[in-house]
């Protein structure tokens, strides 16, 4: 009995010690598990909050990316002329058509008008020659007058008086002719000089206007040709800006689509919580398994952070490049906004054609004014010469009658004959002059008619041009303003996107402490596991957890702990959200650990 009692006592003590040890272990596990549960329970809302914050920023960034894409496409349409540019250009061309045709007509008439001016100059030169010849013819009149006085001196007083009257008329006529010829010579010289100046001025102005208009027309034709060919070409091209904006939008969309860390970490932590709840007894292997699962979750967070920050940096750079591309548009002739673009060229052409039309109209005005006195000159000179011719004939006739009646056989007869000869010469010169005057008048009237027509058409075109010009200019400015606005929207969108990316980066950065917290919990579980080596019973319980895992990565960790072979899911990527848990459903931490069943295919979750 004594030996039995003696034997039982150590056994009782051993049992008591084992019991005490188990009790201490249970208490220790209870403390560790409780602390882990509390921390995890508090951490999960933080993960969710961070996830929501991050996704909100990414959704904003995604919206900005979409806006950027829209603005880039709008800019490309505007800058290439696809939107509005073509219509405005053709409207402007229509506006320019009238004045350009008018200037063309004026320039086409240039040779004929200059020919008429040459004719006028020739006529005035001929009339100046007539004047010289007239002066030569009339130069003898003073001598005729003196000789009449001498020859009639021997006649009776009444007869002498009649010859004196005759000589008086001759002298008066000579004075009249001198005056008339002098006056008209001055006017003729003036007219001649005016015509010469007009001819040279018109030739120069027509040449200048023609050069301007030809240059402008070539530039307009070139611009329209470029517009049409660019419109066709650009629609086939994958422009850099277009590619960049699509890339940015797609990359943001890809991040948003793949940013699943919340679900992954949440479910992993939920599984750990459920396992901790189910584990009443201290389990070194179980603690190690949960520690490894938490470490895996921490790595998931770190990987999510690293990948997201890397992607953010890449998008940030792309946005900067896109802004640069939008400001250069190197692979696109920015015809609506560029210094040498179509809109600027058309605006300048409107101004130039308006100036050219005004100049031609002013030129025609001045030419009409210069030609007007020419007609008067022709009339005045013609009247003076006709009067001279008639008077000279009358004087000659009078002298002949008087000499026949009173001075037969005297020198008076010869003087009368000479007077008649002078009269005939004056008449011939007058006729020549009249012919010159008729031709001058005809040429002047033809020119005046042409210039008056130019003037009327010029004024009409200017009036029509001015009334339509404002609309065309407004339309061109509107296109350019829209292009500038679209460009500025891109800058604003890039600024907003980059600000949103910075906020998203800051939100993602807040994952770091959460991951550290998971690692801290895991470290405490590891410490417990090291102090409590697993036994056979526990190993079986841990093995039974395999069926509770819904993610490939969880099963992989489980395999490490149990020493079993893990067969990875064949599917390279399967989003966690779409993955079905193994049968039975994922453990709820409020319920007991589920019974292990056949392994599920689960999902191989790749964050990025």
């Amino acid at each position, binding site marked *: 009995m004594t030996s039995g009692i003696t034997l039982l006592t150590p056994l009782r003590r051993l049992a008591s010690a084992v019991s005490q040890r188990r009790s201490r272990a249970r208490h220790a596990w209870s403390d560790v598990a409780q602390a882990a549960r509390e921390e995890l329970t508090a951490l999960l809302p933080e993960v969710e909050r961070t996830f929501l914050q991050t996704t909100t920023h990414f959704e904003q960034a995604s919206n900005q990316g979409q806006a950027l894409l829209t603005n880039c496409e709008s800019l490309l349409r505007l800058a290439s002329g696809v939107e509005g540019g073509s219509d405005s250009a053709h409207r402007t061309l229509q506006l320019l058509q009238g004045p350009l045709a008018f200037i063309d007509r004026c320039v086409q008439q240039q040779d004929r008008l200059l020919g008429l001016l040459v004719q006028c100059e020739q006529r005035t030169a001929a009339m100046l020659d007539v004047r010289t010849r007239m002066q030569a013819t009339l130069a003898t009149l003073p001598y005729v007058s003196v000789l009449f006085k001498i020859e009639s001196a021997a006649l009776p007083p009444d007869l002498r008086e009649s010859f004196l009257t005759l000589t008086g008329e001759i002298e008066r006529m000579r004075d009249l002719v001198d005056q008339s010829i002098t006056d008209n010579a001055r006017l003729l010289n003036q007219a001649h000089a005016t015509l010469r100046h007009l001819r040279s001025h018109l030739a120069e102005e027509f040449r200048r206007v023609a050069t301007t208009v030809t240059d402008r027309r070539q530039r307009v034709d070139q611009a329209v040709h470029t517009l049409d060919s660019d419109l066709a070409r650009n629609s086939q091209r994958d422009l850099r800006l277009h590619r960049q904006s699509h890339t940015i939008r797609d990359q943001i969309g890809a991040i948003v689509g793949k940013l699943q860390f919340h679900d992954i970490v949440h479910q992993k932590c939920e599984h750990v919580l459920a396992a901790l709840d189910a584990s009443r007894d201290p389990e070194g292997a179980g603690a190690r398994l949960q520690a490894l699962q938490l470490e895996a979750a921490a790595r998931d967070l770190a990987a999510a952070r690293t990948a997201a920050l890397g992607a953010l940096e890449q998008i940030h750079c792309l946005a900067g490049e896109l802004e640069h591309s*939008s*400001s*250069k*548009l190197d692979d696109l002739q*920015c015809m609506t*906004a*560029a*210094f*040498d*673009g179509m*809109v*600027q060229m058309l*605006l300048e052409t409107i101004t130039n054609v308006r100036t050219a039309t005004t100049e031609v109209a002013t030129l025609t005005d001045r030419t009409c004014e210069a030609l007007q006195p020419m007609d008067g000159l022709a009339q005045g000179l013609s009247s003076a010469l006709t009067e001279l011719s008639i008077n000279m004939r009358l004087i000659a006739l009078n002298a002949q009658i008087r000499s026949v009646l009173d001075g037969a056989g005297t020198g008076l007869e010869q003087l009368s004959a000479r007077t008649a000869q002078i009269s005939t010469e004056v008449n011939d010169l007058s006729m020549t002059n009249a012919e010159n005057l008729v031709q001058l008048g005809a040429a002047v009237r033809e020119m005046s008619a042409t210039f008056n027509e130019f003037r009327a058409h010029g004024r009409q075109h200017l009036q029509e041009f001015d009334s339509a010009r404002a609309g065309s200019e407004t339309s*061109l*400015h*509107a296109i*350019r*303003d829209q292009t*500038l606005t679209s*460009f*500025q929207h891109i*800058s604003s969108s890039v600024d907003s996107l980059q600000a949103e990316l910075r906020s998203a980066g800051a939100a993602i950065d807040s994952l770091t402490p959460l991951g550290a917290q998971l690692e801290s919990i895991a470290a405490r579980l590891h410490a417990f596991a090291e102090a409590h080596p697993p036994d056979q019973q526990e190993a079986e319980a841990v093995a039974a957890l395999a069926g509770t895992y819904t993610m490939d990565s969880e099963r992989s960790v489980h395999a490490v702990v149990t020493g079993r072979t893990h067969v990875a899911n064949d599917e390279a990527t399967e989003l966690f959200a779409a993955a079905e848990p193994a049968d039975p459903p994922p453990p709820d931490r409020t319920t007991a650990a589920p019974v292990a069943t056949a392994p599920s295919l689960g999902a191989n979750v790749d964050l990025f």
Partner: protein
Amino acid sequence: MNSTAGTPIASKSVTWVSPGDITTSTESAVSAALERATQGGHWDTLEIDLRAARLVDSKGLNVIVSVIRKAGERGCRVRLVAPQTSVRRILAFTRIDRHAEVVDAGGRPV
């Protein structure tokens, strides 16, 4: 060395300071002011101080392009001084910066 606003002097540089935005509503006044600033005298560089301009629209650009062209025709150049970021972007976008110098307030190319 620059002259005072709008007064060309022997330094061959004339400066015009934009009082604000160059847009549809100020286009005529700016155009007239630039015309006055560049009338007479001998100058080879026109400096347009843009620091007060926050906005340049299509009509404003027309004024600037016109001034650059006129200066070019007489063998002179235009320097656009201290444009704000938004205006500088527009100058680059419209390629005006390829036809006129764009410098900061210290005269350094931007």
